[in-house]
């Protein structure tokens, strides 16, 4: 420590002139556009073309869906306006699209079951919520029973049994996808572990199941289950005609999920298994605490995209005479008392919006999950 430095510190007496901000950090909107949209004349031209195209499409869409649409009235006001969507049609058919032929006086049961599902799913998926394990237990173990009792009905609880041929609309779509999602992940994990197992019998069973199910078109399975099965199986052994596609969809999505999970398992370095073995950690603890948490985190995008695919595949049940949401829209648009030039477009637009809403929600959630779980891997 020298005296000199104590006495005459190196302090500037004038202000240092302001420096330009570093080129790549927080560019202003003009800079950003210059850099990303108009970097060369050809990219500038493309940008302008696509902006014009987007504006043109958006304008058509909005004028059909909102500005020129009919918001009140009945068939006649919709017929008078051939330019825009006919929303009163959706309003009148809304209950049919939600419940199908479910008896009107009992529809509160469906509402209640759906509300319960929504509460549990939010509780379980919202990472900051307290006691999420309780929510998971309730959702996977208690909720299916409660939903069955509510929606189908149990006579001695004073809830009349509602025949499944009366179920329809969004109820079917949600039921199918929730069953598919709830069953596919656990069964898929078991199948994936089985496929990598060193026990030859377990491995053979899992490989056969996965390959057979993945090798058969879903439509064929539905068709066999609903129209051919009564031919081979006596009446009293044939499950309900809604239960059959439910089982089919659960098995189907499990096989696909198994392959997704297997991809994640393969991404975990062998050294981790060996280290766990060396420490004397049992197989199940190793899988539960070390391998699966990492493997599942890696494959979240694929898991969610399988779920999204599954959600949209539920429309296939329409071919075996079960009126899911899309089928309900198609049925509603045929109604001669609403017949008009814009009815079909309105119906399909509404269906598209509903499906997009559900799928986009799932996709956004998976992205936020990825950000939270993958902090350690972030580059």
């Amino acid at each position, binding site marked *: 420590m020298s005296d000199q430095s104590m006495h005459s510190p190196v302090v500037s007496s004038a202000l240092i002139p302001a420096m330009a901000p570093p080129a790549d950090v927080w560019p202003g909107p003009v800079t950003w556009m210059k850099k990303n949209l108009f970097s060369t004349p050809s990219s500038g031209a493309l940008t302008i073309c696509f902006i014009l195209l987007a504006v043109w499409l958006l304008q058509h869409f909005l004028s059909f869906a909102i500005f020129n649409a009919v918001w009140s009235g009945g068939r006649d006001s919709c*017929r008078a306006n*051939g330019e825009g969507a006919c929303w009163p049609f959706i309003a*009148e*058919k809304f*209950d*049919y699209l939600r*419940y*199908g*032929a*479910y008896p*009107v006086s009992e529809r509160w049961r469906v509402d209640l079951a759906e509300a319960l599902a929504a509460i549990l799913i939010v509780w379980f998926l919202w990472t900051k919520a307290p006691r999420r394990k309780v929510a998971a237990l309730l959702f996977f173990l208690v909720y299916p029973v409660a939903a069955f009792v509510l929606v189908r009905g149990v006579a001695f609880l004073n809830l009349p049994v509602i*025949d499944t*041929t*009366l179920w*329809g609309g969004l109820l079917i779509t949600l039921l199918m996808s929730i069953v598919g999602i709830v069953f596919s992940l656990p069964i898929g994990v078991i199948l994936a572990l089985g496929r990598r197992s060193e026990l030859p019998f377990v491995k053979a069973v899992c490989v056969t199941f996965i390959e057979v199910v993945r090798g058969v078109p879903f439509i064929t399975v539905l*068709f066999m289950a*609903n*129209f*051919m*099965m*009564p*031919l081979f199986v006596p*009446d009293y052994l044939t499950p309900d*005609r809604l239960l059959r596609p439910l089982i089919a969809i659960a098995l189907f999505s499990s096989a696909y999920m198994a392959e997704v999970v297997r991809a994640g398992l393969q991404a975990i370095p062998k050294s981790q298994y060996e280290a766990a073995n060396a420490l004397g950690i049992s197989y199940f603890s190793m899988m539960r605490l070390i391998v699966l948490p990492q493997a599942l985190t890696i494959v979240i995008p694929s898991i969610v995209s399988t779920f999204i695919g599954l959600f949209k595949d539920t429309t296939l049940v*329409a*071919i*075996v*005479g079960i*009126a899911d949401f899309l*089928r309900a829209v*198609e*049925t509603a648009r*045929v*109604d*001669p*008392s609403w*017949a*008009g*030039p814009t*009815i*079909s477009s309105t119906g399909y637009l509404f269906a598209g919006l509903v499906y997009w809403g559900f799928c986009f929600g799932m996709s956004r959630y998976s992205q936020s999950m990825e950000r939270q779980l993958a902090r350690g891997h972030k580059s």
Partner: protein
Amino acid sequence: MRSTFKGLLGLAIACTASSAWSATLDNVKKNGVLTCGTNSATAGFSLPDNEGKWTGFVVDYCRAVAAAVLGNAQKVKFIPLTPKDRFTALQSGEIDILAHNATWTSSRDTSLGILFAGTYFYDGQGFMVRKADNIASAKGLEGASICVTQGTTTELNLADYFRSQSIKYTTVGFADEEAVVKAYEEGRCDVLSADTSTLNASRLRMAKPDDSIVLPELISKEPLGPAVRQGDDQWFNVAKWTLYVMVASEEYGVTSKNVDAMKSSDNPSIRRLLGLEGSIGKDIGLGDDWPVEVIKQVGNYGEVFDRNVGKDSPLKMERGMNALWNKGGVQYAPPIR
């Protein structure tokens, strides 16, 4: 090849089915509900209303069968079926009776292990043209361009008809009926051709329905009827005579409103129809009052027609061939005695 396969399947099913399901009537009575396969959604024929309750022409036929067998027209479970799977569903026993817009043809009747029990609707392919074109008959369609749905018998029927009439024409094909209607409205063709039951529904969907008319000619025979499994004669009779009772009661003027008053009629035909004389119930395995239940709960043929597709419905179809035999149509019931 395909027909061979279908034939084999039909045969196999007929062999197993004839013994396994020989007692559909008993099964339906035991279950207390009739399982009926219908169209998934066809305006006027089978369509759920806003509460999901099925309505329509073929739906009412199913309700009539339920009224006959179970005494209650509401005890029906409807299974909507696509044209592809409708016969399989019947063969396999998934449904008790098929009330679909299915055309009765020889190959279907003989090779699929099913039997058509009559014709509840005489349909046929027709033409719709713009009023402004002043065409009064299909003979005036020389050089016309015709919008049709691709891959259906519609195109084949057109080819047959116009070749036999030696009229030149061009077809403009589209994948589905929706697109066909749109193309016709946009003026991409002069004529729209489809089965008349569809034509009327299509016209309703147009922006200006009154600008078009349906020509009187039908160029194909499309008798639509209910079907049951082969080898169950009792159930076949139930299906057949339910329809005949509806037709006969229109002929004798018995309606859902006056059926009770008609019980005191002196007309022997009416008395036999209503089960007051003769044995309309016992031999078929039903109660003697089954025709009364059918008429009271569902109505006679004319009432069902008018309510669903005829003058009281949005479709406003003419009776045409579906009028009674003594009123210029071909609906005819054998005598009940």
